[in-house]
């Protein structure tokens, strides 16, 4: 099947609609990264479907020259589930934001992850409501001043990854909104992963929450403040590549290579494929360094695989081929 896929460029996935996000928004980076990733995925253009909810992020499908639906607030995972169950050959993407997925759509978000249907979710997390002009979101920080919390937010935030892994997410990746190359690759990896993939983009909103992530993502500090993990590699970071994660009891700690006899062999090697999510949760929760990359990618049976197997079994066991076989079976009687 892959042989039949045309050679595409990003232009094949760019629609004729004018992009209407604010200048300087990371959403542009995500859009272009996706348009560049799709030609690398080996999927046919007509098999790609983007489903979004409501919010700035959710305008995304209009800008992609693929099948798409800009639906209603929070419901994209449920709609995408229907699309995928109907046609498992499609490459189905959910585009959502922090409010869309974790406030109004929280129930669909956790259940789609629990079911592990093979679709990809890109979560634009800017820790604010943008389209409604600046209210706090479920990922806004305590004390954050917004239009709806002028004296500071009193609601503690969700960590998207912690919630997702708690809801049994098999694939969780986190990526900074200003690293298009890594983001492109992560989209490709998500598509190749069989099961629900969740990618959280740390997306800067230049209008209502500018600089929310700058203490991690600014070019000047990025290498020292962030750790990009890769499966099978030691978790080392820093400009000098001399910091690494070690486990001390039940806590992760940062150790410096060359100090206290620490060598690379002492640094934890990242295992994204481990079923037990304990360490993945610890990586998600870490504040220093902020961990990005594919934190968890555990292979598991998908919902559609279970459904397909069950349907095949029932079909082969059943004598009903047409509805007539059912309607005229059992307790029927004739009137003459």
């Amino acid at each position, binding site marked *: 099947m892959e042989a039949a896929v045309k050679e595409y460029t990003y232009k094949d996935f760019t*629609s004729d*609609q004018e992009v209407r996000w604010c200048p300087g928004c990371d959403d542009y980076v995500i859009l272009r990264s996706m348009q560049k990733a799709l030609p690398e995925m080996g999927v*046919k*253009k*007509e*098999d790609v*479907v983007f*489903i979004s909810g*409501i919010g700035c992020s959710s305008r995304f*499908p*209009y800008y*992609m*020259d*693929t*099948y*798409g*639906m*800009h*639906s*209603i607030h929070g*419901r994209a995972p*449920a*709609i*995408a*589930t*229907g*699309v*995928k*169950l*109907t*046609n498992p*050959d*499609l490459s189905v993407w959910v585009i959502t934001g922090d409010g869309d997925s974790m406030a109004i759509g929280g*129930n*669909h978000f956790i*259940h789609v992850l629990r079911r592990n249907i093979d679709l990809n979710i890109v979560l634009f997390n800017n820790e604010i409501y943008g389209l409604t002009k600046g209210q706090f979101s479920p990922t806004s920080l305590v004390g954050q001043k917004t239009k709806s919390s002028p004296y500071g937010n009193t609601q503690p935030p969700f960590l998207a990854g912690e919630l997702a892994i708690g809801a049994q997410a098999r694939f969780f990746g986190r990526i900074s909104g200003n690293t298009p190359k890594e983001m492109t690759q992560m989209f490709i990896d998500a598509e190749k992963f069989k099961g629900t993939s969740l990618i959280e983009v740390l997306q800067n909103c230049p209008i209502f929450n500018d600089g929310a992530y700058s203490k991690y993502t600014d070019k000047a500090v990025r290498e020292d403040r962030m750790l990009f993990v890769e499966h099978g590699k030691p978790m080392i970071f820093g400009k000098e590549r001399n910091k690494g994660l070690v486990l001390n009891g039940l806590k992760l700690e940062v150790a410096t290579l060359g100090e206290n006899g620490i060598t690379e062999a002492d640094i934890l090697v990242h295992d994204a494929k481990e079923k037990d999510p304990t360490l993945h949760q610890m990586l998600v929760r870490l504040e220093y360094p902020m961990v990005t990359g594919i934190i968890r990618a555990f292979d598991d049976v998908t919902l559609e695989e279970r*459904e397909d197997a*069950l*349907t095949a079994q*029932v*079909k082969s066991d*059943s004598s*009903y*081929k*047409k*509805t*007539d076989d*059912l*309607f*005229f079976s*059992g*307790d*029927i*009687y*004739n*009137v*003459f």
Partner: protein
Amino acid sequence: MVAATENKKQKVIDAVIIRFVGDSGDGMQLTGTQFSDTSAMFGNDVSTFPNYPAEIRAPQGSLYGVSGFQVHIGSVEINTPGDDVDLLVAMNPAGLKTNLHALKPGHTVIVDTDSFTKKNLEKALYETNPLEDGSLENYRVIEVGMTTLTKEALKDLKGLDNKAITRSKNMFALGMVYWMYGRSREHTIDFFNKKFKKKPQIIEANTKVLNAGFYFAETLELIPNAYSIAPAKMEPGTYRIIMGNQATAWGFLAAAEKSGLELFLGSYPITPASNILHELVKHKHFGVKTLQAEDEIAGISSAIGASFAGDLAITTTSGPGLALKAEALGLAMMIELPLVIVDVQRGGPSTGLPTKTEQSDLLQAMYGRNGESPIIVIAASTPANCFNYAYEAAKLTIEHMTPVLLLTDGYIANGSAPWKIKSVSQMPEIKNHIIKKATDTWHPYDRDNDTLARNWAIPGTPDLEHRVGGLEKDRVSGNVSYVPENHEYMTKIRAEKVKRVQNYIPEIVPEFADEGDLLVVGWGGTYGSLHSAVKELHEDGYDNIGFAHFNYINPLPKNTSEVLRKFKKIIVCELNSGQFVKVLKINCSEFDFLQFNKIQGLPFPNNELVEKFKSLVQ
């Protein structure tokens, strides 16, 4: 069948109404179902009505734990489960207390005297034993120690515990009733053999008890005569007994097969709609896909996704669920995709009366969405025609590319009646608007000139990539448009699309009279009650009363005003405080409408209808 010769002293009657009542663990639903199935297979027309508490196992012996099953059988046409009963079978004091009022004076009540213990009498709030205090003197009481006799019948059967023994006493009652009405035990014994295939002892026990009841009735001097009800004159054909919800599910199966689409159901459990889900989930052999979703909204949302991807998509619910689905229903209307929503109505508002019937979601179905968002609304009117209207809902949504809301209600959904089986080959064609190949001028909102249906471009089809969404669409390209004139144009075209469905639905044909002094108007699940009442009057010489029953609510049949105009008075009868009458007033404003409304969670009482209609023509 052998049954007719088994009993020689039968009195011939046209119809009989029997009610089996007992504790919710006494197996009354099974007893009633067996009696109605057996009667149907004998050739009677049948209508049934289960009436059970919302609690699964209410405290034993309590008044609110009484479970009942009413069955109306006849050699004549039967349209309802009936009101007052000819025979009451009461397995305990609570059942007697809560149902005696429905027994016609002078008629028979069979009681299990073993259950009339001091404790059970107290639980039923009887101060004295009704079997002893003379309070039943207006009835013929048949006192049977059913528990004792059941134990006696099984005394030689080893290894059965006491619980299993007492549990089969319902079959003793059934055996008695079978004898009284000259029914064969064959069907029920077959049923035991299938149901308890792996438990031969249970088969033997139930068969023994059923036979014991049958012979007890035969030899008992206390039953001086028995009744015979001849087979009804029904249209020749192959029949089965079907429940409304099952018929709804099967209508969708048939529509999927006919249309060549696969069926997708997204649903969340809710009384009284859940058994549509239970039914459809069984039929994976036809490729049916079901998703028990995390909530009502996900139920409809997954169906919208399935529809976008090319399935015949449906979602099923009841009133509170419909409220939750409203926003998504608006989306389906906006993006103009096929979708059927089934609302099995129950008593509202809020949680209301979940196990009782009502017709109070009509206005919610019509208008319960933001913005101007008309959809097609149709209603089934009998358990069996739930099949036809489910099929019709699927046909209309596929052919007109707009959502269809199918209303049924708890009464017809749980009631059962004979269904003359329809083969898919007899059903009308279903044409779809699927587009397979793009032309140079193709747009997603290109419309069919007659129906105004837009085309259905399904993901996976090359060169038809497009975006849909809840934002207003440009009339041609389908792209987002905030142009003021375009919004007005699109609002009107969505309404016009629904209006034009009038050209594709049958006209309304009144029954009993085309013109006269009074037109009785109803819609949905009240067909049986209203039809029976008007028929009774007609047989009594009231040939000036007509009856028009509506299955198409939005749009109304084209000739509605024409039919109404032929009558001096019009009375609109509904199980709500007047909702369809509002729809009629909007669409047919030149008429004065009288109303007859009941809001008690129960079907119309026949005598009240008859009296009301009589009073309007005298």
